[in-house]
């Protein structure tokens, strides 16, 4: 009970320190809103934060138009049709995120198994690699969708077979055996497509889709290699889903920095003498500080979740998010204990604390989301507790982690909290600074 009184007093003191309160509760809000807006938030659909992509349609076919229409359905992309030269120039000048050139013959070959796949040229602004990566994913999605539609409508596919059969007949260089095999293949394919409607009526009715009984492996041959994260397929993240978890960590780091100086401040103010002269045990004083940090951390996460939801963030699993918040609170309270022994004066603890916070934030993805980091930095980020915290929040918000997938994150954070608490308490008691 006395621990709770100590913690309540510390939180009250924190709230009276306007600057500290701002860094814990105000700064994360600004970060969340800023990055959310930069990444295309605002919920206003096209135009606001959408990637502007110049599209050059060198094919001008029904298929290429369908492909561009499909692409333009994506809220994150704003399509501007352009000539090739203008498109390339605008990307060079940074006026557009990327230029996409749909090659001549796209409509004839896209999704046709026996033909080389069309090469879609994608020219991106080198300073916008993150957007480029996302755009590749969106292009892949649009092509896949297009091919799916093509297979679903035999009338679109049969002319292509007829055209190839004619080309085969005109080819004088091919050996007779190969010609014969291909003729047989085209015949079989034509027969299968002619019976698609019949097949669907008889078998393919599980999900109401006319083609749900037929799988076409050639969709994987679309020449766009990168895929969006697997879980993003199940829940497409909004910009707030990404920006708020990382912004929450700024508040958490503010708690760590604020409370790590608290012990040093008690010493410099002389109030530590009073606390120790009271019937409080030393462990109660330490636990009071840790509890204050824990409570403030939970409060800042709760506030950011509420604000994020107001802005459009939609957590996938509330129970998991609550569990993650509790574990993060414990973990960073432990870290706070370590930080509090890194200096002897209030100033030195604050200086070292913020320096370490910045490093953890940089590598952990609180400044730039880890998903947009180069591979080397992404690997290094596992050393940062911030990374584990953000990853676990994202898991509950939009990565749609199962409890099994979330467990390693939670265990890592718990371990950090336990190790931090033990190290901090042992060093404090050895220094006899309490």
């Amino acid at each position, binding site marked *: 009970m*006395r621990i709770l*009184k100590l913690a309540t*007093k510390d939180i*009250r*003191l924190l709230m*009276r*320190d306007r600057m500290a309160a701002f860094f814990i509760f105000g700064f994360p809000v600004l970060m969340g809103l800023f990055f959310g807006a930069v990444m295309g938030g605002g919920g206003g659909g096209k135009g606001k934060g959408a990637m502007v992509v110049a599209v050059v349609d060198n094919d001008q076919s029904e298929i290429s138009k369908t492909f561009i229409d499909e692409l333009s359905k994506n809220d994150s992309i704003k399509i501007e049709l352009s000539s090739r030269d203008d498109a390339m120039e605008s990307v060079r000048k940074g006026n557009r995120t990327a230029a996409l050139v749909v090659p001549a013959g796209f409509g004839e070959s896209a999704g046709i198994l026996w033909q080389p796949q069309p090469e879609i040229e994608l020219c991106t602004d080198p300073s916008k690699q993150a957007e480029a990566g996302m755009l590749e994913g969106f292009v892949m999605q649009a092509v896949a969708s297009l091919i799916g539609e093509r297979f679903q409508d035999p009338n679109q596919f049969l002319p292509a077979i007829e055209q190839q059969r004619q080309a085969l007949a005109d080819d004088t260089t091919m050996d007779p055996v190969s010609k014969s095999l291909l003729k047989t293949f085209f015949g079989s394919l034509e027969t299968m497509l002619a019976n698609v409607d019949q097949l669907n009526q008889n078998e393919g009715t599980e999900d109401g889709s006319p083609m749900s009984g037929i799988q076409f492996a050639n969709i994987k041959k679309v020449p766009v290699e990168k895929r969006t994260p697997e879980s993003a397929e199940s829940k497409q993240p909004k910009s707030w889903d990404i920006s708020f978890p990382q912004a929450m960590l700024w508040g958490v780091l503010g708690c760590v920095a604020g409370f790590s100086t608290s012990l040093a401040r008690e010493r410099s*103010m*002389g*109030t530590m*003498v*009073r*606390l*120790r*002269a*009271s*019937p*409080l*045990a030393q462990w109660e004083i330490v636990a009071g500080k840790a509890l204050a940090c824990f409570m403030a951390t939970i409060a800042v996460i709760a506030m950011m979740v509420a604000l994020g939801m107001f802005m459009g963030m939609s957590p996938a699993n509330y129970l998991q998010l609550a569990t993650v918040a509790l574990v993060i609170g414990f973990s960073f309270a432990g870290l706070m204990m370590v930080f509090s022994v890194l200096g002897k004066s209030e100033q030195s603890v604050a200086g070292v604390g913020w320096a370490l916070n910045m490093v953890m934030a940089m590598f952990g993805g609180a400044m730039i989301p880890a998903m947009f980091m180069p591979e080397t930095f992404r690997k290094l980020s596992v050393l940062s507790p911030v990374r584990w915290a953000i990853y676990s929040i994202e898991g509950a918000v939009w990565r749609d982690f199962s409890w099994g997938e979330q467990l390693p994150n939670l265990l890592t954070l718990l371990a950090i909290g336990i190790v931090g608490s033990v190290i901090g308490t042992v060093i404090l008691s050895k220094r*006899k600074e309490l």
Partner: protein
Amino acid sequence: MIEVNCVSKSYGDFKAVEGLDLVVQRGETFALLGPNGAGKSTTIGMLVGLMRPDSGSIRIDQRDPMLPTTRTMIGVAPQALAVYEELTALENLRFFASLYNDHSRIDWCLEFSGLKSRANHRVSTFSGGMKRRLNIAIAVVNSPQVLLLDEPTVGVDPQSRNHIFDCISQLQDDGMTIIYTTHYMEEVERLCKRVAIMDHGKLMAIGTVDELLERHGGDSKVSAEISNVPTGVDLPGIVNDGVLEFHSAEPLETTLRLNRAGVEFRTLNVRRPDLESVFLSLTGRNLRD
């Protein structure tokens, strides 16, 4: 009430307190007098259970001050202003009272310190004297039997100092046992019956103020402007620019004898020995060196 038996405490090679022996009776106001670095605050720290002596023992009401149960009967006003400046006076008192689970004295403490009208004001808006009074008020919020006041008047104006003296007198009247550390001898002479003089961690002398003055104070110092000295009168000191200065165990008798012999005095100043003189006599240096 308080027994300190041959207590020593070192910080590395530095001996902060060496072989200290003290006994303080219940209801007594006892002074620890000494310059900075004499070992007063270390002694207070051991009395309140903040640190354990390297050797020797301390007992408060026959109990170890390191025990939490013993600490409930001790109040301390540290030398540093041990208050939360961003909290109000009332919030400070409530918080510290809550550590003892005793909220009964909060109103009394506000009255006692003369801060009732400022109870809901943040301490950061208080004057130095008000903060000092609050510092003492917090020390007595748990109704302690023993009160340790470590330099309670440092940096306060004369008016606030008098207010603090009044507060301490009130606590004395209530029968509280008080240990008072200071390097202001006039405070000791005003508030304390017995004094322990410390220097370099050692106890130099202990006794009542009168006993110490008698044992170590030396003679009174007389300085007088003289206008006429008849021939043949032997002056006891040195005359410089018409001012006679001399030391005497019986200053008034000596002055009267000179006056009868025809020496005329324009002004006369007799300075009795004080604890400063005692300290000078014991250590060879001034208290505030």
